[in-house]
């Protein structure tokens, strides 16, 4: 018989038309906010996870503190080649790779973009370790080798259809980097990691020549030897660097990060932001719920006589209670459905707009769980909001209720 109650409740909502829609707005906004925030948050988290997992768990990243932008940029006391050599002597470190990440001007087809130029070590063994750990594979052409002076390898962003340069780069094309010409000899496969997909690789030597700096190091990658705990090795590296750079514990001007730590730091920040935003959305839901309560009270007053009639023809208290709870639950649920649609639309819009501005990390991820949860939650908010009015309705005395005009 529950179906009949749903039908009857639904009629009540339809009958009040505009007022029902207005009542749902609170729930609608709350659910839309929750769906869009969680989906964007999830998308961001996934993107970041994929980025960090591609670093490999046995690689430690050492860079100087205090900069902004790319790692090692704009810092007071950069890490050095000597630091790298000292790190290599730490027990448990197999080898180190010094890297340069340089923001450069890239010009193709008269379109100018600023992207990261990443160095590839000259040493073949180190080069292979680095490429392996980053999961980089050549899709077309070949990888860089020693003596590849005017050559570069580019990633997916440069040859994907409809890219910003309005030209799909192929092997053999020439690209201007900081106004110098370089030959593209290889294309990297798509990694799904937005930072990597935007990268241009160049051998260490020619890159240093381009930036005219033989000493600079932005990031040191320490490869942990098999059988050693990366966290323990990281502590030892910190100790060595503190001594070398003459800084006290707690006042380090450098960081040694395991991919896990990096990920956890970002994850914590994301979680805090999400909790705050969802808190705001929850307030909207609360207000929406109060709106439903208010509407339902009005509805009980308006329909006192109808309630009296129903009771006189055999409706028990619990029938009336159920009718009103279902009605307020449906108000919540309908608000929720519209809210989910709006939330999906909103986060997709944010994603598209962000992508147009080059922020490809921001992807909306919708899980079935999220949508089911939102549906369930909006219904429950509606039902909860209806409890008091429904109780009032169910307790009306038929004789009194029938007397109302």
């Amino acid at each position, binding site marked *: 018989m529950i179906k*009949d109650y749903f039908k*009857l409740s639904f*009629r*009540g909502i339809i009958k009040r038309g505009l007022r029902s829609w207005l009542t749902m707005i609170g729930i609608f906004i709350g659910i839309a906010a929750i769906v869009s925030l969680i989906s964007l948050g999830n998308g961001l988290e996934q993107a970041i996870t994929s980025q960090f997992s591609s670093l490999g768990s046995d690689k430690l990243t050492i860079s100087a503190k205090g900069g902004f932008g790319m790692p090692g940029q704009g810092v007071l006391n950069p890490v050095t080649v000597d630091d790298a050599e000292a790190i290599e002597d730490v027990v448990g470190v197999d080898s180190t790779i010094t890297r340069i990440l340089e923001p450069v001007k890239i010009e193709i087809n008269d379109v100018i973009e600023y992207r990261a130029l990443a160095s590839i070590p000259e040493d073949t063994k180190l080069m292979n370790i680095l490429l392996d750990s980053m999961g980089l594979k050549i899709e077309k052409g070949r990888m860089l080798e020693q003596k590849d002076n005017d050559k570069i390898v580019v990633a997916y962003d440069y040859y994907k259809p409809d890219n910003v340069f309005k030209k799909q780069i192929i092997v053999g094309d020439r690209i201007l980097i900081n106004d110098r010409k370089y030959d593209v000899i290889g294309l990297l496969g798509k990694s799904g990691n937005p930072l990597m997909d935007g990268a241009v690789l160049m051998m260490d030597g020619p890159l240093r020549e381009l930036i005219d700096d033989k000493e600079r190091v932005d990031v040191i990658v320490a490869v942990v030897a098999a059988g050693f705990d990366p966290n323990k090795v990281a502590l030892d590296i910190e100790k060595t660097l503190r001594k070398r750079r003459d800084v006290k514990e707690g006042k380090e001007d450098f960081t040694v990060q395991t991919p896990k730590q990096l990920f956890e730091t970002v994850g914590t920040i994301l979680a805090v932001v999400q909790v705050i935003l969802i808190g705001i959305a929850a307030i909207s839901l609360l207000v929406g719920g109060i709106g439903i309560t208010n509407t339902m009270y009005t509805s009980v007053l308006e329909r006192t006589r109808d309630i009296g*009639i*129903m009771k*006189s023809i*055999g409706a028990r*208290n619990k029938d009336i209670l159920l009718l009103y709870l279902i009605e307020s639950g449906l108000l919540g649920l309908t608000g929720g459905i519209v809210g989910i649609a709006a939330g999906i639309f909103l986060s997709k819009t944010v994603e598209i707009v962000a992508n147009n501005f080059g922020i490809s990390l921001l992807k909306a991820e919708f899980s079935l769980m999220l949508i089911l949860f939102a549906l369930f939650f909006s219904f429950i908010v509606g039902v909860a909001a209806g409890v008091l009015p429904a109780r009032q309705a169910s307790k009306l005395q038929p004789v009194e209720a*029938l007397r109302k005009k």
Partner: protein
Amino acid sequence: MDKNSKGDNRPVIELKDVWKVYDMGHIKVNALRGMTMKVMKDEFIAIMGPSGSGKSTAMNMVGALDIPSKGAIYLDGHDISKLHESDLAQIRGKKIGFIFQSFNLINSLTAMENVMLAMMFQGTDEQTRKKKAAELLTMVGLADRMHHKPTELSGGQQQRVAIARSLANDPEIVLADEPTGNLDSLSGENIMKMLMDLHHKEKRTIILVTHDKQVASHAEKIYLLKDGRIEGIKRVK
């Protein structure tokens, strides 16, 4: 008709020394002061009295819409005078069909749905409800008005929907409270004729509550109510 064919002569409703006291703050109003009456199966009786005689209260008692302050009410042999509202509702829905002066239909539902609603609270399945509602509405001559809302029907038609609804759960008693009070005389006469048909052809037990002698004269027996108790019984004819 098998339910009615037994021809037994049992009371369907019996009031024994029923008192109803309304507490109005400083004063207590005795609406009923020891009302006693007995309605047998298949009877058509009227409770008649001037306004202020306790008629409405009497109708609430007989209709199980309210419980007495003192005394006992037996519906179909069971004491209902101390039941909780929800149990009362269940009994009402099953055993009593109401016809009110102001029709009391739900305006947002069609005639058909109004009749079906009474069955819904008894848990009758939709198919049966539809079939029964259509039958009843056809019986009261509204076959072509089933899907109209009450506001699209005349007073007489609305009251006929109410009659159809009152019969939906095959009640023991049809209780009509001033059924012609809001109708013009012709529609009123029609409704009374319909009630008499219900009594004669379908052997329904009918209790009519009215202040109108003319209306009351349709019944077989008139209970005269005065100052909250039955002052006399008049047989018609």
